[in-house]
């Protein structure tokens, strides 16, 4: 059976004085039904732009320049705008780091969810309101009846996040794209939202494309993980393999530099240098300028994909045995 969402050779770029600057540069992955796939990377890796590209929500003047995004076999990149609008917020919906990016500050939160439901379905306001109330219960909003009439500013950060999740779920999406959904929250509230997302995914069998920089959140929520660096994938693996046996030097470096795992009294293992900006991407492996295992070949030749095990993909000359 084919994947629910198939992304192939996706390329997204922004115009600049020196021509089109790529931010996503040939990314391919599958999102299966009911699974949580985490796209992981640091700032500038292209993880958010990859997710926005699948929804055709790349902010202007950026645009998808190449590739294919198929939802259940239907190509989204060439779909008429009106059809795409039905899919967005319908079969696919999105939650963001900052709930106020999708909540209107002057409209009561209940009304906003009711409106989202009625945009996609022909239901009476009374029925939509009842469904909104049920959604508020499902996402754990205490005293839901009263909260329907609250304005966003009357709610805490955690509650606003729950309202946004309720809105995203209101049209029973098959795919939920969650872009750093807990990054702005306090750690105790983050734990609550992670548990909520886990429950929702199980109960609704929805697929989640989770965008995060935090490997702890990956462990809490993901089934599979795709690690990005400078616009490209560097490694794809199931959660357990990635965390216990990372193969790409970048993934290894990321895991080692987490301060909680440091040996007391010893310096934290660093990844030297900084993520290069798109106009400074090396010709070969994008990570070659910072990699401790770099060999000559890495400077000039982009590593092709190899599979070190069932369901695993890695892009590295050294891992591929060429460094031995």
């Amino acid at each position, binding site marked *: 059976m084919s994947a629910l969402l198939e992304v192939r050779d996706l390329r997204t770029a922004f115009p600049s004085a020196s021509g089109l600057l790529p931010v996503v540069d040939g990314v391919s992955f599958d999102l299966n039904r009911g699974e949580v796939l985490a796209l992981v990377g640091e700032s500038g890796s292209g993880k958010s732009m990859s997710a926005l590209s699948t929804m055709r929500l790349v902010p202007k003047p950026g645009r998808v320049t190449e590739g294919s995004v198929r939802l259940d076999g239907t190509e989204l990149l060439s779909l008429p705008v009106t059809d795409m609008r039905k899919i967005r917020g319908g079969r696919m919906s999105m939650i963001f780091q900052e709930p106020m990016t999708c909540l209107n500050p002057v409209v009561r939160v209940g009304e906003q969810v009711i409106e989202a439901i009625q945009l996609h379905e022909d239901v009476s306001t009374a029925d939509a309101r009842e469904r909104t109330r049920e959604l508020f219960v499902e996402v754990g909003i205490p005293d839901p009846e009263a909260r329907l009439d609250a304005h966003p500013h009357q709610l805490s950060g955690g509650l606003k996040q729950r309202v946004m999740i309720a809105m995203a779920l209101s049209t029973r999406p098959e795919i939920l794209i969650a872009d750093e959904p807990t990054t702005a929250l306090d750690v*105790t509230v983050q734990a609550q939202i992670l548990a909520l997302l*886990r429950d929702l995914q199980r109960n609704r069998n929805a697929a989640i494309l989770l965008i995060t920089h935090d490997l*702890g*959140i990956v*462990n809490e929520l993901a089934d599979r993980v795709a690690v990005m660096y400078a616009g490209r994938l560097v490694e794809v693996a199931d959660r357990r393999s990635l965390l216990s046996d990372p193969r790409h030097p970048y993934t290894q470096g990321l895991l080692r530099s*987490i301060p*909680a795992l*440091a040996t007391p009294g010893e310096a934290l293992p*660093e990844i030297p240098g900084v993520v290069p900006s798109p106009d400074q991407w090396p010709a070969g492996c994008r990570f070659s300028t910072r990699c401790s295992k770099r060999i000559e070949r890495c400077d000039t030749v982009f590593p092709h994909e190899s599979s070190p095990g069932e369901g695993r993909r890695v892009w590295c000359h050294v891992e591929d045995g060429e460094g031995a």
Partner: protein
Amino acid sequence: MTTTSETPAGFEPLLRVSGLRTWYAIRQGLLRKTVGHVQAATDVGFEIAPGETLALVGESGCGKSTVGRSILRLESPQEGEVVFEGKDLLSLDEAALRLARQRVQIVFQDPMASLDPRMRIRDQIAEGMQSFGIGADEKERTERVASLLARVQLDPAAMDRYPHEFSGGQRQRICIARALAVEPRLIVCDESVSALDVSIQAQILNLLRELQDELGLSYLFITHDLSVVKYLAHQVAVMYLGEIVEQGPTDRIFEAPAHPYTQGLLAAIPSIDPDRRGGSPPVLGDVPSPSDPPAGCHFHTRCNRVMDRCRAEAPPLVPLEGGASRCFLSSGEG
């Protein structure tokens, strides 16, 4: 109020904060009448030994940044003492305070907001030196700027550039160089690594620790991120709604947290151990408003071990082996 000091006998703490209270008035109406207070910090006390790091941790609204800013008198505390090198900073006049500020520097979360975008970085680093009379002339100060940049692992040749020409991590290095320029004894780091990517964060944490070892600096490290604390801090103070609820040596806090809030905070950190996931959230609900904190123990609305007494009576900060905890359970009165 101070608690057990971990300072070895015979050593004065570099900084001793006691009974610190900073409340902000909430004003309303045409006459700007005070209708209430944001109780940002109440009865806060701790000590920092020379060459050591105290981490002040807590969630948003707990008052940790207010405490940092109060120490530098960027806020105006109503009560308390901030004794630094034997002098109470809160009672100094402007001239004396200015001198003291040479010895206490602050590094913020967002370097772009604390650097002047229109000034070359060499001038920003040298500015403080000039006002405190460090370096005899322009040439000597330039040499010092160069060596400071090298020390924070930036290319001294880049001193004529402007802040926007650097990455976020590099800009934070510039802020650290600027703080070091005036030879401080204490640096308040207010979420200084929170906005950085993990690989860059590791670089800055290592740099801060090297500088501490070399120069004998003390840090007040303010953060919401407990995983960073373990690497850097000798002592930890946990704040909740304006009060310190627990403090003690880092090892003890992580291995045997006494206060239910500290326990919850630690349990809420997502683990990267693939065998550990899917636990239920350890602390429910949201942090209440600091302008109207719950009666009794401020944490009782979210505590999973709440007793009747906690709703009515505020628990005192009770000393325990290796620190203190503001909980009836810690005083054996549970």
